[in-house]
C-alpha cells in the first residue's frame, strides 16, 4: 500500500470527461503514523520529566563539592518534584520504548525502511541538498518521498532514540546492565550521554518542526492521513 499513487478526479456531468484535480501518494502507513504521534507525546513527557529529574542534581560532577551545570526552570518540567517526575518517566518510558519497537519491527518486516534509511547511495545527494537549504543553491530534483538529507536526519533521529533507551537502561539498572554500562564508560557517563542525547533529539525536533512549517500543509496532513496530495515527485 505504501508508495501507491492515485489520481484524484472531479466527476462532471454524464457525458463530460472527469477532471483530474490532483495526485496523491500514500507515504505513511498506519503503524508509522500511529507510532509517530504516540511517540511524540511520549518524547515530550520523557524530556519534561527528565529535566525535572535533572533538577534534583543539576550536575555531572561530584556531589561534594557540587557544581551545578544549569538551573532548569520548573515551568518547563513535568512532575512537580523528583518522585512525581520519576513516576511520569518510568511510566512513559514503556510507551516510548513500545512505540519505538513497534515502529522498527514494522519498518523492517514491511520493507518500508527503504523510504527512511540513509544508505551509502544517498551520500552523493547530501551536499546538493545542503547547498539548497543553507546556501541558496538550486533545488535538486525530487524523486522519492525523502531526499538524502531528510533520510540522514530521520535515520539519525531513530539511532538517537535507540541510544536514549540504552543509556536510560544503564541509569535505571546499572548493575543488571553492567556490560552495557561498560560500553558507555559506566553509570556516571551513561547519565551524561542520556542528557546529551536528549538535547540532540530536541534539536532534531526543532529542525523537524521548522521543515514541516516550510513544507506546507499537504506535507503535514500526510502524517495524519497517510496521503500526500500534490507530491513533488
Amino acid at each position, binding site marked *: 500500500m505504501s*508508495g*501507491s*499513487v*492515485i*489520481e*484524484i*478526479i*472531479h*466527476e462532471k456531468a454524464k457525458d463530460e470527461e*472527469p477532471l483530474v*484535480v*490532483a*495526485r*496523491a*501518494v500514500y507515504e505513511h502507513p*498506519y503503524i508509522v*503514523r*500511529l507510532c509517530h*504521534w*504516540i511517540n511524540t*507525546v511520549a518524547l515530550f*513527557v520523557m524530556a519534561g520529566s527528565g529535566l525535572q*529529574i*535533572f533538577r*534534583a*542534581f543539576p*550536575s555531572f560532577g*561530584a*556531589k*561534594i563539592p*557540587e557544581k551545578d551545570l544549569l538551573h532548569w526552570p520548573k515551568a518547563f518540567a513535568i512532575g512537580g518534584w*523528583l*518522585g*512525581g517526575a*520519576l*513516576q*511520569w518517566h*518510568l*511510566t*512513559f*518510558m*514503556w*510507551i516510548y520504548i513500545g512505540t519505538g519497537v513497534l515502529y522498527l519491527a514494522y519498518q523492517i518486516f514491511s520493507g518500508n525502511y527503504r523510504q527512511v534509511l540513509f544508505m551509502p547511495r544517498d551520500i552523493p545527494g547530501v551536499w546538493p541538498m545542503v547547498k539548497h537549504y543553507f546556501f541558496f543553491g538550486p533545488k535538486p530534483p525530487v524523486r522519492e518521498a525523502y531526499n538524502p538529507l531528510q533520510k540522514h536526519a530521520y535515520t539519525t533521529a531513530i539511532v538517537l532514540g535507540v541510544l536514549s533507551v540504552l543509556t536510560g537502561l544503564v541509569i535505571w*539498572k*546499572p*548493575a*543488571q546492565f*553492567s556490560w552495557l*554500562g561498560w560500553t558507555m564508560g*559506566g*553509570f*556516571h557517563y551513561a*547519565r551524561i550521554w542520556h542528557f546529551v542525547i536528549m538535547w540532540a533529539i530536541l534539536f532534531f525536533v526543532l529542525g523537524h518542526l521548522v521543515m514541516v512549517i516550510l513544507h506546507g500543509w499537504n506535507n503535514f*496532513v500526510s502524517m*495524519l*492521513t*497517510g*496521503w500526500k496530495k500534490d507530491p513533488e*515527485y
Partner: protein
Amino acid sequence: MSKIDRRMTDKKFSQVSRRELLKLAPVLALGAFAIPKLQQGLLKKGLGFSDWASARLFRPGHLATTFDNAELTPFEKFPINGYDVDDPGVIFENWNLTVSGAVKKPGDYSLAQVQALPRYRQNTRHVCIEGWDVIGRFGGARLADFLQLVGADPAARFITVNCADDYYESLDMATALHPQTLLCYEMYEQPLSREHGAPLRLQIPTKVGYKQAKYLTDLKVTNVLDRVGYWEDQGYSWFYGM
C-alpha cells in the same frame, strides 16, 4: 513521475482521508493522563509495572560491579544523607536489633552477634535517586547469613526495617538474600560513624540509595507490608533495583 495505481473522486478521497485520520484516535487515549482524577492512578500503575519489570530483571546471582581501592570516593566526600537528623542519638550500650515475624528465633540481637558472622568488605557504587553516585568501601555481615541465624522463613516475601530516626524501609526477599546485601557496620574499614548510620545500616549495591536504611532498630520477616517505606509512601518506586 510514478505511474498512477488508481483513480479516486475527490469526494471519495475526502472519505478515505477522514477514515485514516480517525484511525489515529487511540493517540487520544493518552489524554487520560491529563485528567486530574485519573492521573495519579495511571502513574501509580505505570510505576507498579516498572517495579514488576525490575523484579524480573533482578538476577539473584548477578553481582554489582566492584571497584579497586584507587577508585574509591574519599570518605570525607561520601555524602551524608538523612531525611531528618544526621544523628538520632542512639545509645550504643543499650542498642539491640529486635527481630520479629516469620523467624524461628525472634528477639533482641546484639551488635556482637552480627559481627560474629563472617565479615565481607566490598567497594561498590552508591547511586542516589537524585542522580549522583559515589564509590564507597563497606563492611559487614551478609543479611542472608543473619537471616539464617535467626531462622527466617526464606519463603517469606519481605524484610521490613525500622530505624532510630523513625525511617522505615522494606526489601524483597530475593534482594535480602543477595550475597552483596550487607548488614553494614563498617565504612572504609572503620566502625560506621553516627552520620552514616551507626551502629548498623543496610548496604545494598543492587538498590538505590534510599533503600539503604540507617540506624536500624527493628527487622521483621513478613508476607504483608503494612507500610512500604518512608519515601515509597510519598511516591518513590518500591523495588528500585539497580
